[in-house]
């Protein structure tokens, strides 16, 4: 509903108080009746996640030869999926950190599950480079540690930077996410009826009791973590873009990659937030807390980042001509009209044409079913973007004698589709076991929080707010 005072959609539907929002959110977790649909979803997602189990097992037994990677296409699905998943994660950090610094209060409702999405996406992403190294059980060789081989990492390579960027990102995201949940675990501990729930939420809450001195330190730490996560999230996708940009490969060796990658990451991430938020608000009846305002605002962010991405595409085309480099020019021609040219046009259609044709209108931005469809369209488009960048630059490089092609195998598809199931399983468990919406932050947005000098009672405050 539209607030007459601001002309915008209300962030929280009116008529809520501290108790009602707490009951609403805690009730989802503490109810003894798990909805049948949840079990159905878990079963389906778990079945799909078997793709990861089977795919990884066979990979470990046989080696990366079961994938479609070969020379010249040495980076295939694994790198595409890695960049795609980690990009999805970036929206969660953007919501939890950057929007907090900008005091965008509407973010409070979607903050927690967006952060959870980040962590689960990073779990899916991290799997791929680890498997791509060929011997995943030796993955710890990437880390600097004293060993009997007397070998150390080589820090002039962006691939080594990546290890640090992604591991820091995963760690800080988990810490930020958990820290945000401590007060809410306290609420769950106090409201739980089941002894086992009381016990585990009690442990997870670390004995949180809402002391004011604790809150002030907590807020200070939250703000600091937000301040640290902001440059972190920008640096992570920048570093990933360096994996490409530092290489002397036509189509990769450009300076526009860092901002264009970060914008693309946020773009696909917000699409994924919508993919998750729309069914959740419907299924758990959270329309009062995740309102049309949120959908509208997220669409605006997608519109902005989508435009940056479109600018990036245009600039790539322009530079391939302006650079006067024969190879750059051929790469772009091959990308558009070569044997895999269809992928380029899919990405133009799904990332630019369809979103730009609809998101400029508020009617489309608040149409729930359209946004749900669009979120899938954009994520397909963003996957194709990475496909185009990785594959079409590699398979026809400088020397025509070394040209080849790239074909993903069934194992590539199995693992990729398996990660969707894995991600969904993790998310369903999170939705059932942890508070999806930060209760303490929602309470801060209610009109009852206003402090009047002289000790106004509840009735005064509510009257004033109305």
């Amino acid at each position, binding site marked *: 509903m539209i607030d007459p005072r601001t002309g915008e959609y209300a962030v929280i539907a009116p008529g809520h*108080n*501290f108790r009602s929002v*707490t009951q609403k959110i805690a009730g989802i977790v503490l109810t003894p009746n798990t909805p049948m649909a949840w079990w159905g979803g878990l079963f389906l997602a778990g079945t799909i996640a078997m793709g990861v189990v089977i795919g990884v097992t066979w990979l470990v037994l046989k080696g990366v030869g079961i994938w479609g990677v070969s020379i010249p296409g040495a980076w295939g699905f694994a790198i595409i999926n890695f960049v795609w998943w980690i990009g999805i994660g970036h929206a969660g950090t953007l919501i939890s950190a950057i929007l907090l610094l900008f005091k965008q209060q509407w973010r409070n409702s979607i903050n927690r599950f967006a952060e959870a999405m980040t962590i689960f996406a990073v779990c899916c992403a991290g799997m791929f480079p680890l498997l791509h190294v060929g011997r995943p059980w030796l993955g710890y060789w990437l880390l*600097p540690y004293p060993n009997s081989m*007397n*070998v*150390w990492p*080589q*820090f*002039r*390579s*962006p691939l080594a930077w990546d290890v*640090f*960027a992604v591991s*820091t990102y995963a*760690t*800080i995201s988990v*810490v*930020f996410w958990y*820290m945000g949940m401590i*007060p809410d675990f*306290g*609420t769950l501990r*106090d*409201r739980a009826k089941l002894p086992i729930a009381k016990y585990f939420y009690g*442990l997870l809450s*670390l*004995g949180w*009791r*809402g*002391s*004011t*001195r*604790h*809150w*002030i*330190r*907590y807020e*200070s*730490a939250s703000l*600091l*973590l937000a301040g*640290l*996560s902001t*440059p*972190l999230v920008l*640096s992570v996708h920048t*570093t990933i873009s360096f994996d490409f940009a530092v290489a002397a490969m036509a189509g990769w060796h450009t300076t526009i990659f860092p901002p264009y990658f970060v914008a693309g990451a946020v773009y696909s991430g917000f699409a994924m937030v919508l993919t998750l938020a729309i069914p959740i608000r419907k299924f758990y009846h959270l329309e009062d807390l995740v309102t049309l305002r949120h959908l509208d605002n997220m669409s605006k962010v997608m519109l902005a980042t989508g435009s940056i991405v479109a600018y990036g595409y245009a600039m790539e085309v322009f530079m391939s001509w302006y650079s006067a480099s024969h190879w750059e020019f051929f790469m772009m021609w091959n990308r558009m009209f070569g044997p895999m040219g269809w992928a380029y046009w899919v990405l133009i259609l799904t990332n630019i044409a369809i979103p730009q044709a609809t998101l400029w209108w508020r009617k489309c931005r608040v149409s729930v079913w359209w946004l749900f469809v669009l979120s899938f369209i954009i994520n397909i488009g963003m996957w194709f973007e990475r496909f185009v960048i990785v594959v079409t630059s590699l398979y026809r490089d400088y020397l025509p004698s070394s040209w080849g092609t790239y074909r993903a195998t069934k194992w590539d598809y199995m693992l990729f589709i398996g990660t969707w199931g894995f991600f969904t399983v993790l998310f369903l468990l999170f939705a059932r076991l942890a508070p999806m919406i930060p209760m*303490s932050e929602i*309470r*801060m947005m209610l009109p*009852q*929080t206003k*402090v009047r*000098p002289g*000790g*106004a*009672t*509840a009735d005064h*405050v509510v009257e004033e707010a109305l």
Partner: protein
Amino acid sequence: MPVREGVYGLLAEFNTPSELVHATEMAHRAGYRRMECYTPYPVEEAAEALRFHKTGVPLMCLIGGIAGLITGYGLEVWINVWGYPLNIRAMPLFSWPAFVIPGYEWTILFAGLSAAFGMLAQNGLPQLYHPLFNAPNFASGATTDKFFLCLEAHDPKFSATETRAFLEKFSPVSVVEVDH
């Protein structure tokens, strides 16, 4: 170290943050110092009434960040110049710009962990037992929708009868005695 038996303090329950802040302010003016507010979300005005402004968290974060920077960057320089020198594309062994990103990531890693764990350490968490959890109204309301002021027994001004009378003046929902 306060005595761990007997009365912990008197706990007054309020329905609104305004009443809580008012009572806290008055208690401070009346000379009470050992007191604490408990709220379901951060109430900055309560912290002002308690005269609690400065936290050590930013300093811990800064120290952590500097330590991370020195550790990360120092490690890279040591590895690439002394520990395992490799000639890569004839770049200098000390190619400092290439070392910036991992050093930067470790700065953030150490700073973030110091801020989060420093906050918990300063708050004395995890602390699974606290006398206040003995008060039934505290357990059901403090993390949901009630606002509490606790005047603690080890305050020199504390007296079971006078402090209770003092708190009753602010028309709280209840004033209960909390035991250790």
